[in-house]
C-alpha cells in the first residue's frame, strides 16, 4: 500500500512540475500577472508530494518491505537502522529520488527568498527548475522506479546494502554532494531566464551570487567528504584516485569556482556578462554530464552502481535537450553588447580573468582525460585507461600557478592599481615565503622539492592575505575598530583563500613524506617505521551486527611510550558474503597512522599495510575553511537587501 502511495505521489509531483514549467513560462511571455504568480504555489505543492514520496520509501526500508524490489536489493533485516535510512539513497533509483527531492527544496528556497525580485524573472527561473524536475521524474517513472514491486513473489530477506556503503560517511556524502550538484541548477535557471528576458546587469549578478555560493559550499563539502570516505573506507590509503566519478564532481566545482569570481566582476563592474552566463550554464551542464557518465555505465568505475543502456539513452536525450537547448539560446541571445568598462594590465579584472582561464583549462584537461578512453574506444584505438600521472601533470602546476596569482588578485584594485604601491606590498611576503619554503623540508630526512614548492605557495598566500587584513584595519581609529569595519564578504574571501593554502600544505606534505609499507607479520612481531614501532599483538574473531571479522590489535609506540592501539578488521558480511577491509586510523593534526589488514597468509601470519601520512588531515581542514568562506561571503548584507 505504502509503495503504491509513494508511486502515486511521484506521478502527481510530475504533473505539478509540468504545470510549473508551462504556466509561469507562458505567463512571463504574455506578461500575465496571474499566470506568473502561479509559480510559487506550484513549487510548494510539488515539494510536498515529492517529500511524501520520499518518506514512503524511507518507511518501506525501515519496515523491511522486501516485496519492493529496490528495498529487497539494497536492504536486509540485519542492517542497522541508520544504514536502512542511508540505503534509501544507496543505489540508483533512490539516489534519483533524493536528487529530485533536493531540487524541489532548492526551488522552494528560491520561491521563498525572492520577494523583491521582478516577478517575470522569478516565474521564468521557477519554470526552468520545473522543467529539470520533469526530466528527472520521467526518467524515474520510466526507467528507474524505486517503488516497483517484485510481486507476486515474496522475499523474506533482502540482499543487503553494498558493504562499501555501510558507513557513516556514506550517510551524509550523497545528500551533501547532491545539494551542491542540484544547487547549481539555480544559477543555471537564472541564466536561462536572463537569456529569455534579454537582460543581465549588476542586480542580476547580486541575485545569483548567494545561491551560487551556497551550492559551491555544498559541493566543496561533498567532494571532500567523498575523498575522506575513500581514504578511510577503501583501505588503499589514497584520498583521490582520478576516478571518473570523482572527476565528475570536481569539474562542476572548478567551473563553479570560476563562476563565483566572474560574478564578482559582473556585479561590481558590469563586465564579463556573457562569460558569466556561459559559466553558469557550463557548471550545471557538467553536473548533468557527471550524472550521465555515472548512471549510464559508459565509463565503468568503482562507483557506478547501476549500468543500464536504456537509462543511458534517456539521460543522454535529456542532456541534449537541457545543455544543447541552453547553449543554443546562449548562441542566439547571448549579450553581444560590448561592456564599456576598461581595465589595465594591473587590475583585479585581469587577474580574475586569468583565474577563470586557468580553471577552465584544468576542467578541459580533466574532461578530456575522463572521456579519452571512450573516444579511443569509439575511434577504434583500443581499450585505454588514462592514469593519474596525466591528471597530476596538469593539475599540480596549474593549481600552483593559481595559488601564486590568487593573493595578488585579492589585493589589486578594480580597473587600475598604481604600480609603485603594489611592488612594496609583495617584497616582504615573497622573501619570507622563500625562506619558509626553503627551510621547511630541513625538518625531514629528505629534501623534497614538492614540499618546498607547496610550503612556499601557501606561505605566500597566507602572508599576503594577513598583510592585507592588517593594511585594511590599520587605516581606521584602532585595529579592533578597523577589523570590525571590514565587510563580511571580505572575511569570506580571506577564509576561503587561506583554506586553499591549508589544502596545498596537506596535499604537498602528504605526497612528499608519506611512508607506506606492506609487510607480512606474525602475532608478536614488531616492525619499526620512521621512529614508530608497530607491534602486531593479536588477531581475534570479532562479531558485528551483520558481519563477522578478523580483528587485529596493533600497538603503536614511539620511544617506549604508547601512541595508539589500532584495531583494523577484515570483515565478511553474512548476506552477501563480501569481504571488506576496515582500516584503523590514528588521526592527529600533524600525521595519521593508518593500518589495514591485507589477507591471511600461511599459519597465523597476515599481510598488513602500514602508512604514516603527515599532514593528511590538512586537506580536509582546508576544505572546511573553503566551505566556511562561502558561508561568510553569502551572509553579506548586500545580498540580504534584495531578498
Amino acid at each position, binding site marked *: 500500500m505504502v509503495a503504491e502511495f509513494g508511486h502515486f505521489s511521484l506521478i502527481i509531483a510530475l504533473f505539478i512540475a509540468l504545470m510549473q514549467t508551462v504556466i509561469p513560462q507562458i505567463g512571463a511571455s504574455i506578461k500575465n500577472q496571474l499566470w506568473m504568480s502561479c509559480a510559487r504555489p506550484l513549487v510548494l505543492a510539488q515539494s510536498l508530494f515529492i517529500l511524501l514520496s520520499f518518506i514512503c520509501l524511507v518507511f518501506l526500508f525501515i519496515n523491511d518491505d522486501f516485496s519492493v*524490489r529496490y528495498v*529487497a*536489493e539494497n536492504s536486509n533485516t540485519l542492517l542497522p537502522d541508520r544504514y536502512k535510512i542511508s540505503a534509501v539513497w544507496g543505489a540508483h533509483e533512490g539516489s534519483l529520488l533524493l536528487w529530485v527531492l533536493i531540487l524541489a527544496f532548492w526551488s522552494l528556497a528560491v520561491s521563498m527568498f525572492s520577494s523583491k525580485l521582478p516577478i517575470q524573472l522569478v516565474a521564468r527561473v521557477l519554470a526552468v527548475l520545473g522543467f529539470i524536475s520533469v526530466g528527472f521524474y520521467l526518467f524515474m517513472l520510466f526507467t528507474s522506479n524505486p517503488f516497483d514491486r*517484485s510481486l*507476486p*513473489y515474496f*522475499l523474506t530477506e533482502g*540482499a543487503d546494502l553494498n558493504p562499501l556503503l555501510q558507513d557513516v560517511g556514506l550517510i551524509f556524502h550523497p545528500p551533501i554532494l547532491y545539494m551542491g550538484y542540484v544547487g547549481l541548477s539555480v544559477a543555471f535557471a537564472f541564466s536561462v531566464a536572463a537569456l529569455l528576458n534579454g537582460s543581465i546587469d549588476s542586480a542580476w549578478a547580486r541575485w545569483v551570487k548567494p545561491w551560487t555560493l551556497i551550492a559551491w559550499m555544498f559541493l566543496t563539502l561533498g567532494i571532500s567528504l567523498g575523498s575522506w570516505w575513500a581514504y578511510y573506507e577503501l583501505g588503499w590509503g589514497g584520498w583521490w584516485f582520478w576516478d571518473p566519478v570523482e572527476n565528475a564532481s570536481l569539474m562542476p566545482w572548478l567551473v563553479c569556482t570560476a563562476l563565483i569570481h566572474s560574478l564578482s566582476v559582473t556585479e561590481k563592474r558590469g563586465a564579463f556578462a*556573457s562569460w558569466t552566463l*556561459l559559466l553558469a*550554464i*557550463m557548471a550545471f*551542464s557538467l553536473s548533468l*554530464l557527471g550524472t*550521465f557518465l555515472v548512471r*549510464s*555505465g*559508459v565509463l*565503468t568505475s568503482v562507483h557506478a552502481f547501476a*549500468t543500464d*543502456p536504456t537509462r*543511458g*539513452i534517456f539521460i*543522454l536525450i535529456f*542532456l*541534449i535537450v537541457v*545543455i*544543447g537547448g541552453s*547553449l*543554443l539560446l*546562449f*548562441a*542566439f541571445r*547571448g549579450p*553581444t553588447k560590448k561592456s564599456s568598462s576598461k581595465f589595465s594590465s594591473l587590475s583585479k579584472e585581469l587577474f580574475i580573468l586569468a583565474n577563470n582561464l586557468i580553471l577552465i583549462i584544468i576542467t578541459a584537461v580533466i*574532461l578530456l582525460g575522463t*572521456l579519452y578512453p*571512450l*573516444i579511443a*574506444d*569509439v575511434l577504434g584505438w583500443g581499450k585505454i585507461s588514462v592514469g593519474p600521472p596525466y591528471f597530476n601533470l596538469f593539475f599540480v602546476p596549474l593549481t600552483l600557478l593559481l595559488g601564486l596569482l590568487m593573493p595578488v588578485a585579492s589585493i589589486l584594485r578594480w580597473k587600475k592599481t598604481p604600480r609603485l604601491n603594489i611592488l612594496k606590498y609583495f617584497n616582504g611576503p615573497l622573501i619570507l615565503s622563500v625562506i619558509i619554503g626553503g627551510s621547511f623540508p630541513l625538518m625531514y630526512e629528505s629534501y623534497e622539492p614538492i614540499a618546498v614548492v607547496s610550503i612556499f605557495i601557501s606561505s605566500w598566500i597566507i602572508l599576503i592575505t594577513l598583510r592585507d587584513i592588517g593594511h585594511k584595519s590599520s587605516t581606521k581609529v584602532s585595529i579592533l575598530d578597523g577589523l570590525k569595519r571590514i565587510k563580511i564578504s571580505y572575511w569570506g574571501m580571506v577564509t576561503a583563500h587561506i583554506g586553499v593554502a591549508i589544502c596545498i600544505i596537506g596535499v604537498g606534505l602528504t605526497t612528499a613524506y608519506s611512508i607506506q609499507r606492506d609487510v607480512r607479520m606474525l602475532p608478536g612481531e614488531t616492525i619499526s617505521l620512521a621512529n614508530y614501532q608497530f607491534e602486531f599483538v593479536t588477531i581475534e574473531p570479532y562479531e558485528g551486527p551483520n558481519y563477522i571479522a578478523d580483528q587485529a590489535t596493533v600497538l603503536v609506540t614511539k620511544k617506549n611510550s604508547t601512541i595508539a592501539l589500532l584495531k583494523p578488521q577484515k570483515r565478511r558480511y553474512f548476506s*552477501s*558474503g563480501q569481504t571488506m577491509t576496515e582500516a584503523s586510523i590514528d588521526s592527529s593534526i600533524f600525521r595519521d597512522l593508518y593500518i589495514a589488514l591485507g589477507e591471511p597468509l600461511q599459519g597465523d601470519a597476515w599481510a598488513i599495510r602500514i602508512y604514516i601520512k603527515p599532514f593528511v588531515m590538512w586537506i580536509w581542514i582546508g576544505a572546511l575553511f573553503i566551505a566556511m568562506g562561502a558561508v561568510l561571503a553569502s551572509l553579506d548584507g548586500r545580498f540580504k537587501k534584495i531578498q
Partner: protein
Amino acid sequence: MVQLVNKLKFFLPLTIFTGITFFLIVALDRDPNYMPSTLLDRPVPAFSLSVLGNESEFIDEKIFMGEPSLLNVWATWCFSCRIEHPFLHQLSLQGIRIIGLNYKDNTFKAKNWLDEKKDPYILSLVDQKGIFAMDLGVFGAPETYMIDSRGIIRHKHVGIIDDLVWSESLMPIWKSLK
C-alpha cells in the same frame, strides 16, 4: 567581419558540446557491458556433466534434442537467482522445459536450496569448475539460454527473468522455437 567573428564566438560552446555528444551517443551504442553469446545460432557445445542429486548419472548435449528448452544458469551464492526462482517455478508449471546449470557452487548447499524452495528444473547439471560454462560463454548468474529442439542456441538473456521480461521479450522467441 569583426562582428561576424564576435557572433560566431557564441556558437563555440555549442559546437564543442555537439562534438562530445557525438562520442557519447556512439559510446552508448557500444555499451561495454553488452555480452553477446559467441555461440548464438550454433549448437550447444559438447559436455558431459553429472546431475545434481544423482552424481553417478552423466548427461551430455543430447538432452537438448527433441524439444525446445531453457538452460538456466544459477547458484546459491547468486542473490538475483533467489528473486528469479519463484518465476521459474511458475514457468515450469506452464510446461516449459527448464534445465538448470548449477554454476561454481557448493553441491551440498545447492541440493538444500532446491529442497527448501521448489525445484523448477527437469534436472540440474553440476558445473562446479565452470568449464562447460566457459564454453558456453557464461559471465555470471543468472543467465538463461533458449535452445531449440535441434539443440541450437537461439537466444541468451543476461539477468533475472521476471513477468515483464518474459512476456515482452522472451515469450515471442519461445513461441518461435515451437
